[in-house]
C-alpha cells in the first residue's frame, strides 16, 4: 500500500468514532454543574465528628496569636514552621490545622506526617524525619479511597534541615478532593542542600480529612476589562481560600501577545499592603492559550471588608504571539532575529577549556528584569538541548546580563525561543467594590 492509499484507509478508520464519544456535551454540562456546587469533600459534616478532632488550638481564647504560640509548645513549633508565610500563619491562627500524627519506618528512616492545612486550592503537609541524612525533601502521589490515582495537582517541596518540614500539594484541576485519601510519600535525603538522593521506598499513609477544618472558597467577582501595553485583559474574579488568593484573568482573543507573568498587589484604605507570594506556585497556564492567566498571592481570606481593597496591576510581561526564534552563531558572535524590548547586546562565542571541554556561551544584556531566552534550544538539525539554567549579574554598564552555557554542543549555530518580548510597567488600580 502506498502513502496515498494509506491516507484514505486511515480516513475510513477514523470515521468510526466510538460510542463512548456520544453525550460529550451533556457530560461537560454535568461536570460544570458539579464544579459550581464547589469542590466537595465527600461526607456530611456530622459524620466527621471524632475522625480527627484531636488537635484543638483554641487560640481565640488567647489575647493574641503570638502569646498563644509562646505558651503552647505545639503552636510554637507550628508558628515557627509557618512564620515565612502570612497565609499559613493566618490559617494556623484560625484553627485550620488538622492533626495527622502517623509514623512509618523503613530501615533506618522514620517519616512522621504531623499536620495538614487543607483547602480547595492546596494542601500543606507538615512532616518530620528521623534518619541518616541532615536534609530531606518529599513528594507524594494521591489516591482516592478505592486506590485510584488522582490527577490534576502538583507537589512542591524544598530541601530542609528543619525539624518540622513541609510540602505543598497544589490542586490545579482536581475538582473533588476525596475526604479519605491515600498518600504515597517518597523521601529524598541529602548531605547538603540541593544534592538529593531518593530513598528507595514509598511510605503509604491513609489520611482522613476533616471538612470542618476546610473552609469553602469565597469568590469575589471583579469583571473589569483593563488595557495594559496595548493588550486587553479581563480581571474576572478572585477566589479566596485560607491558604491563598487566586486571581483569574481572561485575555482578549484579538491581543497580539500572551501574558507571561504579572506583578500585582492589594492595598487597603489604611495602607496595609498584601503582596507576598507564599506558595511554591505563583501562576498557572490553561489549556486554551499559551499565556499565564491565573496568579496566586497570599491569602485574603481573613481580611475583613474585602471591598475596601484596591487591586494594583504593577507590571505585565508579554510574549508576542508571532514571535520568531533568535539564531546565534557561536563562531562569529552574531545573531539573527529580534531581541526582547530593553536588550542592548547579545554576544556568543565558543570556549575551549582543558577542564570543561568545548562549550558555547551566549550572553544577553540590557535594561531587562526577566530572563530573555528560554533554556531549551535547538541545533540546526532540529535536535533539542537545554542549558539547564542561566547565570545573572547586575554589574554591567548597560544593565543586567544573563549568561547561558551550551554544554557539549558541537554545532556552530543555536536557535533560541524568547521568554518575553516586552514589559508594561504602568500600574493600573482596580477598586474591589
Amino acid at each position, binding site marked *: 500500500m502506498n502513502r496515498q492509499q494509506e491516507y484514505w484507509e486511515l480516513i475510513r478508520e477514523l470515521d468510526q468514532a466510538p460510542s463512548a*464519544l456520544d453525550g460529550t456535551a451533556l457530560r461537560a454540562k454535568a461536570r460544570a454543574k458539579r464544579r459550581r456546587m464547589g469542590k466537595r469533600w465527600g461526607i456530611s459534616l456530622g459524620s466527621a465528628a471524632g475522625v480527627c478532632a484531636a488537635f484543638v488550638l483554641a487560640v481565640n481564647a488567647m489575647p493574641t496569636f503570638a502569646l498563644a504560640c509562646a505558651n503552647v509548645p505545639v503552636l510554637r513549633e507550628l508558628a515557627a514552621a509557618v512564620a515565612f508565610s502570612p497565609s499559613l500563619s493566618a490559617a494556623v491562627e484560625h484553627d485550620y490545622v488538622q492533626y495527622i500524627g502517623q509514623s512509618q519506618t523503613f530501615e533506618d528512616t522514620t517519616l512522621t506526617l504531623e499536620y495538614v492545612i487543607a483547602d480547595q486550592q492546596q494542601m500543606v503537609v507538615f512532616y518530620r524525619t528521623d534518619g541518616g541524612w541532615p536534609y530531606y525533601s518529599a513528594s507524594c502521589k494521591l489516591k482516592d479511597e478505592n486506590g485510584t490515582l488522582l490527577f490534576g495537582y502538583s507537589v512542591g517541596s524544598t530541601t530542609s534541615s528543619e525539624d518540622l518540614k513541609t510540602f505543598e500539594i497544589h490542586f490545579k484541576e482536581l475538582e473533588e478532593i476525596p475526604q479519605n485519601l491515600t498518600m504515597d510519600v517518597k523521601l529524598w535525603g541529602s548531605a547538603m542542600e540541593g544534592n538529593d538522593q531518593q530513598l528507595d521506598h514509598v511510605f503509604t499513609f491513609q489520611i482522613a480529612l476533616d471538612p470542618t477544618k476546610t473552609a469553602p472558597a469565597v469568590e469575589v467577582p471583579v469583571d473589569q476589562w483593563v488595557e495594559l501595553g496595548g493588550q486587553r485583559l479581563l480581571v474576572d474574579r478572585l477566589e479566596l481560600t485560607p491558604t491563598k488568593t487566586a486571581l483569574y484573568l481572561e485575555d482578549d482573543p484579538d491581543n497580539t501577545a500572551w501574558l507571561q507573568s504579572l506583578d500585582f498587589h492589594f492595598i487597603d484604605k489604611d495602607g496595609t499592603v498584601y503582596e507576598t507570594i507564599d506558595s511554591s506556585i505563583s501562576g498557572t497556564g490553561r489549556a486554551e492559550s499559551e499565556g499565564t492567566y491565573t496568579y496566586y498571592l497570599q491569602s485574603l481570606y481573613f481580611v475583613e471588608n474585602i471591598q475596601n481593597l484596591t487591586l494594583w496591576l504593577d507590571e505585565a510581561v508579554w510574549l508576542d504571539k508571532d514571535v520568531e526564534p533568535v539564531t546565534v552563531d557561536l563562531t562569529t558572535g552574531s545573531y539573527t532575529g529580534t531581541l526582547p524590548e530593553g536588550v542592548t547586546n547579545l554576544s556568543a562565542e565558543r570556549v575551549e577549556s582543558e577542564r570543561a571541554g568545548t562549550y558555547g556561551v551566549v550572553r544577553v544584556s540590557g535594561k531587562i528584569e526577566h530572563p530573555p531566552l528560554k533554556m531549551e534550544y535547538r541545533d540546526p538539525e532540529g535536535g533539542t538541548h537545554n542549558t539547564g539554567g542561566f547565570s545573572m549579574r547586575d554589574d554591567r554598564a548597560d544593565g543586567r546580563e544573563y549568561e547561558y552555557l551550551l554544554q557539549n554542543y558541537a554545532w556552530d549555530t543555536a536557535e533560541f525561543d524568547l521568554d518575553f518580548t516586552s514589559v508594561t510597567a504602568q500600574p493600573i488600580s482596580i477598586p474591589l467594590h
Partner: protein
Amino acid sequence: MTELEYLERAEGVREKLYRAALLTLGSESAAVDAVDEAVYKGYLGYRKLREPQYLETWLVRILINVCRDELRRRKRELAVEELPETAGEAFDALPLKEAIRRLPAQLRDVIVLRYFTGLTLEETASALELPRGTVSTRQRKALALLKLDLTVEEGAS
C-alpha cells in the same frame, strides 16, 4: 450563544475533535478523554466567546492544547518521542498513523487539522493562532516528510 446552542454545536463537532485527538494521542480512550476535556473547557468559556460563528475552530484550539498538555505529561513518563525534521528515512519506515504521531508537534498539529479534521488553511491558522504563511510552510514540510502528495482540496471533512 445560548447554552443549548453550545451543547448542540459541541456535540456536532465531537467526531472531528476525536479524529484530531486520536491521531495526536494514539489511543481511543485518551482521545475520548481529550474531547470530553475540551468540550468541558469550552462549556466553561463559551459565553465569553466574542465571535460565536468560530466556535468550532475555538474548540479545536482548546483540544490541541489539551492534547499538548497530555503529551507533555506523557513525555515526563518517557512515552512516544517525536522524531526531528531531519529524520526523513525514519518517517518512511513507519506506518502513516505512527509517522504522523511522531512528527514534530508544530508540523503534526497542522497536518492533523488540515487533512484529518477538515479545517481550511485559514481555519487552521486561526485554531493554531499562527499566520497563514506559517501554516502553509509547515503543511508543506509535513507532507514532504510523510511522502504524502495531497492537494489543498484533499483535506478530508
